[in-house]
């Protein structure tokens, strides 16, 4: 380990108790009416709130046995008779629900994924989940091109975009309910894994990122979802470190070095709107123009000493490198959530070492961490649940003291992941498969 040279910014402090306060407020009191536009994301937000407290090591303390059970009942209240979960109680017709109107209250892929995670966080054994129904439905949610959608229409048409977000959550549901077992489980056939991998490969872009769908622009969110999904189905690119044997499976990310280049390129010194103004008038000069040429101009005027230090794995005292932000697309401004969407695929690809975590951590703590706890999107922004959770998750990924170990692909603590893996009904499915595979090899 290199000698630590004290530099300004080392005082950057993770405000553990403030974050607990922020998330406890989200758990215990009504969210302000500004969240109305997120009414249909309530199951997702329920996950963020409980998982944040879990990462902070405060979930046990935050809930009485009665509250815990009450929340479990709430999640099951969102389960549909035909299987799968609705995303919010607002879609529920109660006793008036029937075969004619249930199309307006359909099972929802993100809600189902997050409902399963929420139940796990609350210590439920998922025994009341209509697991077989979900697996049947999951098959119907995959399109011929391999992608997954959000909901199913009455005529069987799949609604929602065909981007990797739904693929991520669908393969996540599959991983929770049947591990990575191939073939039928409980008489329900598997999704078409190869077709899904093909779909991801089709959305790779010329600069190495992954986009919404073929020919769309590379975007860190879609890249992250794709890489995590590949890990759920065990189709990550074969890793150069492990010098693995090639296998007969189709793997995602056809040009790993290019993808790593694209991910590393998301680090930026454009941290707020002021940074985007091209004061040097060297090229386009407008406030709307967001780019990194200014940082280049700034940096190249420095003597190389500080750069040399950072190259030799020393903490840098280079002022401009004090804070490094992360953007989601080329030539865009840094944003808290993209620290998550970029660091997750790096971590899942076993390459988190390609970024220097220290200045990213300082950026989050000094610039977007809020006085009342939580994180905002940009420096000075009020915290919101989405950015607050993803900022916290990055710090957990970086091993911040006081936060639990984090599983990047599943987006929750390793404790919670192990809990899912420990469930008896799941061990029976996953375990049996391992046994039968061994058996096949023996033959």
């Amino acid at each position, binding site marked *: 380990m290199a000698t630590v040279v004290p530099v300004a910014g080392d005082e950057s402090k993770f405000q553990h108790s403030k974050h607990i306060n922020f998330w406890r407020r989200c758990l215990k009191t009504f969210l302000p009416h500004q969240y109305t536009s997120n*009414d249909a994301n309530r199951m997702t937000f329920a996950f963020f709130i409980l998982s944040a407290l879990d990462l902070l090591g405060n979930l046990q303390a935050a809930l009485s046995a009665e509250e815990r059970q*009450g929340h479990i009942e*709430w999640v099951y209240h969102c389960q549909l008779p035909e299987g799968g979960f609705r995303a919010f109680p607002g879609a*529920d*017709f109660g006793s008036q629900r029937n075969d004619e109107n249930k*199309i*307006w*209250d359909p099972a929802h892929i993100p809600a189902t994924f997050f409902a399963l995670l929420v139940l796990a966080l609350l210590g439920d054994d998922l025994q009341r989940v209509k697991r077989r129904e979900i697996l049947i439905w999951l098959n119907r949610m995959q399109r011929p091109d391999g992608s997954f959608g959000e909901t199913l229409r009455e005529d069987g048409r799949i609604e929602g975009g065909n981007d990797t977000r739904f693929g991520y959550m669908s393969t996540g549901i599959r991983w929770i309910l049947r591990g990575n077992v191939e073939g039928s489980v409980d008489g329900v056939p598997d999704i078409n894994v190869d077709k899904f991998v093909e779909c991801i490969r089709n959305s790779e872009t010329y600069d190495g990122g992954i986009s919404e769908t073929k020919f769309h622009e590379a975007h860190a969110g879609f890249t992250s979802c794709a890489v995590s999904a590949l890990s759920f189905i065990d189709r990550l690119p074969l890793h150069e470190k492990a010098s693995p044997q090639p296998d007969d499976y189709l793997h995602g990310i056809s040009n790993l070095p290019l993808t790593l280049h694209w991910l590393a390129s998301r680090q930026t010194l454009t941290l707020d709107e002021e940074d985007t103004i091209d004061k040097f008038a060297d090229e386009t000069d407008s406030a709307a123009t967001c780019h990194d040429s200014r940082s280049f101009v700034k940096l190249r005027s420095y003597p190389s000493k500080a750069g040399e230090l950072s190259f030799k794995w020393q903490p840098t005292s280079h002022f401009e490198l004090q804070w490094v932000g992360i953007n989601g697309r080329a030539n865009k401004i840094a944003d808290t959530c993209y620290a998550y969407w970029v660091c997750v695929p790096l971590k899942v690809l076993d390459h988190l070492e390609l970024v220097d975590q220290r200045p990213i951590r300082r950026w989050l703590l000094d610039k977007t961490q809020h006085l009342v706890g939580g994180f905002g999107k940009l420096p000075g922004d009020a915290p919101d649940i989405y950015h607050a959770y993803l900022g916290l998750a990055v710090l957990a990924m970086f091993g911040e003291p006081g936060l639990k170990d984090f599983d990047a692909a599943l987006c929750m603590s390793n404790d919670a992941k192990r809990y899912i893996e420990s469930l008896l009904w799941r061990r029976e499915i996953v375990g049996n498969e391992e046994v039968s595979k061994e058996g096949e090899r023996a033959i």
Partner: protein
Amino acid sequence: MPKYYHDDPRWADIDALPQDDGGPYPLAAIAYTDEYSEAMSYLRAVMARNEMSERVLELTEHIIDMNPAHYTVWLYRAKVLSATNSDLSREIAWLNPTALRHLKNYQIWHHRQTIIDKLDSHVGEADFIATMLEQDAKNYHVWSYRQWLVKRFALFPGKGGADGEWDGEKELKWTEGMIEADVRNNSAWNHRWFVVLGGREGETVSDDFIKREIDYAQAAIRKAPQNQSSWNYLRGIVRHAKLPVSALKDFALEFATLESSDQVHSCHALDLLAEIYAAEENTWDEAAKAFELLATKYDPVRAQYWKYRQGLLRQGGVVA
């Protein structure tokens, strides 16, 4: 002014269906306004009886304005529009300001596609997109929607579909205009890739085509050498054409040399040079030097990445 239904005679026949929040311990409960709670209660009531009527259109507009991410309200509205034989151009006229109020919403674009597809006409869409891009020239949904229009109405250069107003040649010109307006707009660069290559899947590209694209990207780089979008495009085209990366060596040398470190005008040029040198074993020393310059002086933000790339040289020079 909040809008209510309980005192509106046109809704007197409806028994509102209040929300059952699922017991005493709901999660992520929101302090709904009375207006939203009531409107949702009426929405549930009409959805529950599958009412297809003019007044439902008003109600769904109201809900969408407060909660555009409601995933079935859009589908319900689309069904009502078709059941009531509504004028779809009026729907587009309503969608325009609605999209401007909800720049980050996804559902709105899907709905718009459904309507435009039925109308079978893109008239007015180019103007609408221009208005949206004035708000945010990099709005992901808008660019995705434009790609959909180009495919739907066959607006690829040299692929027919010419109707005077909008055709493939005009699309390419428009894209160039967007890049001209902001050479660092990566969405515009990506759109160019789509416009020039999206209509020729499976075709081999001609040398003239490759030369035109390389020339275009190089001219943009000369204008702004420290712009990752144009460099990525250039390298993408070269890779697509299966040309060796060394084909770009002379061009990269215009912006960076290893001899005099004061003559580096672009870290992307240095990055490219490093890759060119890394591809040949006899120039690995030069590659190592380029990576070191990037890490220490020209792109220290990515020092660890460049160090990793330098380390790969020892393992056989695997690079992008």
